């Protein structure tokens, strides 16, 4: 167990280190002069020289990386060119809305997908299963931004149940404003959960210990409820953790559709001004989020399932 923990942690640290290197290299991969691209072709040479100095681009690569990595250890993510403020200050207030959207969306997704996945597996190859599978196929092919717009059209513009966009002021306001985006996130994630849960449950139901429970004459309700579903729930946690990147991808787009002041909408809006320090920092933040969630999932999985303790 300890060996596994150490190995898993080392692995996460290695990926994190490479991630940092990649985030650092972004600005150096830009074809041409990144400063000219940021400021425009007709920027005065003095301004170009100043920004280049501010970014440290006039120093050697090694020293630039040293100050970049050193800054990270002190919690300094650099300075936004576009806003002329520390990137940490720009990102800070945007973390809350993004996390809230991810959590709210995940809850909605589970409420929709877990019952459907279980039903689909229990009524394998019956009409119920076919209907659920068709729904999941349609859901998987559905563009999240488009579904979000449909919700806005119906529930905001026509029925006035929810605000069109934004984040609200109070906690209740936040939840109200985030409801439609969270439903969009939920519907975007649900097909994956349904499909994976269905196949994992089908596998479980074919396992020997289920046959054994049935052979002992336990009633079907107990076999499914106590033995099969417990396994399915562990599977669901894993499914969610593995798909955290997919979830974030969706929420980046959905935040932009609904104008939520989160990290995703910031990323999209920063591209047009090519604010590289901000882009680097966001790359790191998203990468770290995925690495940490996967690490936690692996560790908790190792705790739950003794077979993993290698």
């Amino acid at each position, binding site marked *: 167990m300890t060996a596994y923990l150490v190995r898993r942690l080392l692995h996460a640290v290695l*990926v994190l280190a490479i991630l940092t290197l990649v985030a650092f290299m972004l600005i150096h991969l830009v074809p041409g002069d990144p400063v000219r691209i940021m400021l425009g072709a007709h920027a005065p040479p003095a301004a170009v020289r100043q920004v280049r100095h501010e970014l440290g681009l006039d120093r050697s690569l090694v020293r630039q990386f040293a100050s970049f990595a050193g800054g990270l250890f002190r919690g300094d993510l650099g300075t936004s060119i576009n806003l002329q403020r520390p990137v940490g200050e720009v990102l800070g207030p945007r973390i809350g809305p993004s996390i809230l959207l991810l959590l709210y969306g995940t809850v909605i997704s589970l409420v929709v997908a877990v019952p459907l996945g279980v039903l689909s597996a229990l009524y394998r*190859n019956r009409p119920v299963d076919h209907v659920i599978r068709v729904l999941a196929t349609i859901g998987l*092919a*559905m*563009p999240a931004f488009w579904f979000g*717009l449909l919700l806005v059209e119906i529930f905001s513009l026509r029925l006035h149940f929810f605000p069109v966009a934004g984040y609200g002021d109070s906690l209740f306001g936040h939840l109200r404003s985030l409801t439609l985006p969270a439903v969009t996130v939920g519907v975007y994630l649900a097909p994956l959960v349904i499909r994976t849960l269905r196949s994992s449950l089908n596998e479980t139901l074919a396992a020997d210990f289920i046959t054994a429970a049935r052979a002992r004459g336990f009633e079907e309700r107990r076999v499914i409820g106590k033995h099969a579903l417990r396994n399915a729930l562990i599977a669901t946690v894993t499914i969610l953790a593995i798909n955290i990147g*997919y979830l974030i*991808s969706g929420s980046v787009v959905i935040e932009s559709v609904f104008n939520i002041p989160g990290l995703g909408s910031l990323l999209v809006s920063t*591209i047009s001004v090519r604010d590289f320090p901000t882009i680097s920092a966001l790359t790191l933040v998203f990468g770290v989020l*995925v690495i940490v969630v996967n690490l936690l999932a692996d560790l908790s999985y190792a705790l739950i399932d003794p077979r993993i303790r290698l």
Partner: protein
Amino acid sequence: MRRSIVRPRRENAKAQLLRALERRARSERRWAAASLWVGVGIVGLFVFCALAAPLITSSGPNDQDLLHTLQPPSWGHLLGTDNLGRDIFSRSVYAARIDLMVGLITTYVPLVLGVGLGLLAGYRGGWLETVVMRAVDVVIAFPFIVLVIVVIAIVGPGLLGVYIGITVVGWALYARLTRAEVLVVKEQQFVLAASSLGYSNARVMLRHILPNVLRPNLVFSTLDIVLNILVLASLSFLGLGVQPPTAEWGLMVADGQTFLLTAWWISTLPGFVIVLSGVGFSLIGDGLADRLGRGWRGRAGEAEGALLTVVEDGA
């Protein structure tokens, strides 16, 4: 009536169970075959639209008719017209060209790269394997869209960025899937036999291992096409992909955003087109997964989860 009652009953129960299992297997097979053919039909329709666009519609994708702007769907304009009087049906048909082309290229170029690297990594092992698999880990640590957007930040908005971005990200899952399969296949008798006959490494890899690891990759690629078309549409919707006035499905949805109340069809209908194309490719994938054998399906399912880590991902 002196028949034994117990015996025949037991026989009956057994026969019944067998029949039920057989019925289930048959119904599953029939469902998979139906999936495959409906999928082929839908995708065929889209391919036909892309190839024969000028034969299907008389108006071009950018023909403006300022006397007939914001027309609701009718026989004259099947899907209505937008704020510039462009026919949405014509635009949807022409958009199939760019969406299908990008979808296929961004799926199969990474497939070739990933299968190649995964094959080398799995067969050769050593430092090559370490480097490739660590690279896979890093790529998979990013949310798919975030990495593609970052590449677009470097290259600049437009199709080139989309191609490079999705390729940089997309190969990783194929490499991981292929390497896992190679590790299993390379220990099997026929591969050991081929090596001991003195065939070159290249020949063993290409003639003996490759055909056996290709199938799960192909099954997975149909799902990948769906996701990649969605990524293209999302990026274009956000203004980072295909640029106006080119007809592209995601861009068309974006065009209608300001007319949601007055002209709902501009955004809504191109979205249905995207869904239909995606359903077509997914159905082909489901059908293929079944046809290529049961064992592969489980692994393709795993890859689906893994992909989504990248896109997991993915859109």
